[in-house]
């Protein structure tokens, strides 16, 4: 059955695995599919690669290590940590209470993955492009139409990985397969300041600065949204990242809501800088980089299995597990702030392949932040390291689904 057809644009990328979104899950899916022998087309809507980490200035990468500081998931997740540690002497493993994270400059992350992708010869990248339509034939996606700076293009992919973070492809298949439930997790707005005194944020001075900002939000000296503001030391001694939490005013899918939130963030950012510059150790503070709005939960698919908060708490394992995770349920509520529910010491849970798959579509996987999970499980599983591991599994499965000539012949016969 032909569902939709646009019939416009050039046809390219026959038989390729198409990965949409070049964030953590998409990069891993692309590299993994390429290393499994597939030709890969990586479609990214921005001009840069790296997704939320480099775009939203995430500098504390979670989900790569277990409670003892050992690698949580082998494979590409491990390879990435090794590349990042090698790329910059300032990259370091850091213990935050019982969790281990990787502190890395977001620009180092972006450069590292750009070099990595450029060296993977089976991957071609299309920047500033977005899938706008697709044709589904029975249980397969037969054609994708995407817009890019030089017009529209069509690809007849053998397999597709939706790593858009907001299930954009799955929405094109059927919008009812994506869950946008309320309340939505708050968005994050991070900006980087340099020129602060060295050790200005050393424990427990950082706690005092955060308390000062939050008190100012209560007294009206700063906007009320600063009640949950956070300051984190960066990778350099004179550097800090200021983190604001913004409650969505509507759906993240609504461009007006996005613009309003961004304008609000910019106003708060200016107020916070002026406030900080009055503190003795921050008089020289200047904003050197502003991230884009980080959307933690842009919608999750209704997959073959929905991972639940109870699965996370119980450390559930699955026969079709693709990776492990022990990150706490870290939920960002626009009103109440962040809450962290830790797993019991030493426990971890698994994510099944079925949480990356839809019923009824054979050649589509959704990996990363848009996995099939309830709000609680998502608040744990969405971290970078886990997204890399999910993406790797989805990319390998997509590459393996690549039919050989005989299978393709049989397949074509079926559709004639």
């Amino acid at each position, binding site marked *: 059955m032909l569902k939709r057809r646009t019939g416009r644009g050039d046809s390219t990328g026959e038989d390729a695995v198409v990965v949409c979104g070049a964030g953590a899950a998409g990069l891993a899916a692309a590299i993994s599919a390429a290393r499994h022998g597939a030709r890969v087309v990586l479609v990214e809507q921005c001009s840069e690669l790296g997704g939320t980490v480099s775009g939203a200035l995430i500098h504390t990468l979670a989900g790569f290590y277990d409670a003892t500081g050992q690698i949580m998931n082998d494979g590409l997740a491990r390879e990435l940590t090794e590349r990042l540690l090698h790329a910059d002497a300032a990259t370091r493993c850091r*213990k935050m209470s019982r969790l281990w994270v990787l502190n890395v400059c977001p620009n180092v992350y972006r450069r590292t993955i750009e070099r990595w992708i450029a060296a993977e010869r089976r991957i071609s990248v299309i920047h500033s492009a977005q899938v706008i339509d697709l044709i589904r034939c029975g249980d397969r996606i037969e054609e994708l139409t995407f817009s890019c700076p030089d017009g529209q293009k069509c690809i007849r992919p053998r397999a597709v990985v939706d790593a858009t973070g907001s299930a954009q492809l799955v929405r094109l298949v059927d919008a009812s397969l994506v869950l946008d439930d309320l309340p939505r997790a708050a968005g994050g707005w991070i900006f980087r300041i340099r020129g602060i005194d060295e050790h200005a944020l050393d424990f427990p001075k950082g706690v005092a600065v955060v*308390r000062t900002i939050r008190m100012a939000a209560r007294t009206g000296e700063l906007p009320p949204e600063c009640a949950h503001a956070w300051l984190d030391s960066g990778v350099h001694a004179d550097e800090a990242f200021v983190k604001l939490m913004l409650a969505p005013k509507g759906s993240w899918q609504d461009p007006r809501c996005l613009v309003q939130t961004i304008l609000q963030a910019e106003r708060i950012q200016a107020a916070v800088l002026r406030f900080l510059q009055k503190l003795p150790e921050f008089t020289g503070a200047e904003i050197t980089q502003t991230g884009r709005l980080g959307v933690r939960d842009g919608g999750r698919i209704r997959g073959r299995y929905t991972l639940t908060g109870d699965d996370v708490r119980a450390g559930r394992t699955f026969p079709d597990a693709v990776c492990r995770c022990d990150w706490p349920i870290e939920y960002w509520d626009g009103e109440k702030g962040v809450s*962290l529910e830790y797993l019991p010491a030493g426990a971890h849970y698994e994510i099944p392949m079925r949480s990356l798959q839809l019923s009824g579509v054979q050649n589509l996987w959704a990996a990363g932040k848009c996995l099939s999970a309830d709000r609680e499980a998502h608040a744990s599983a969405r971290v970078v390291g886990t997204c890399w591991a999910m993406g790797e599994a989805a990319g390998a499965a997509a590459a393996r689904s690549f039919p050989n000539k005989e299978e393709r012949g049989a397949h074509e016969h079926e559709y004639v």
Partner: protein
Amino acid sequence: MGTATAILRTTMDITETIRVCIRESFQDDEQSFDFGNDDELLTILDSLQILRMLIDLETQYSIKVENSELTPENLGTVDRLAAFIAKKK
């Protein structure tokens, strides 16, 4: 009971309160998560949890901790924090 013994008792009570606070931060029991009273506090809790615990302790003991008092000497370990709160009370 002598003054010294009373202060010791109070500090011990506060230490226990702090330990309960820490365990509650993880919704956990002592068996699966052990820590010493002289362990660096930052290796037990993250700074957000420390901030929350401070707010709890301020309410519980009706004290006001000034930002200038947030030093490693006062906050570095469970023992030091307990002694600091005992002094503030």
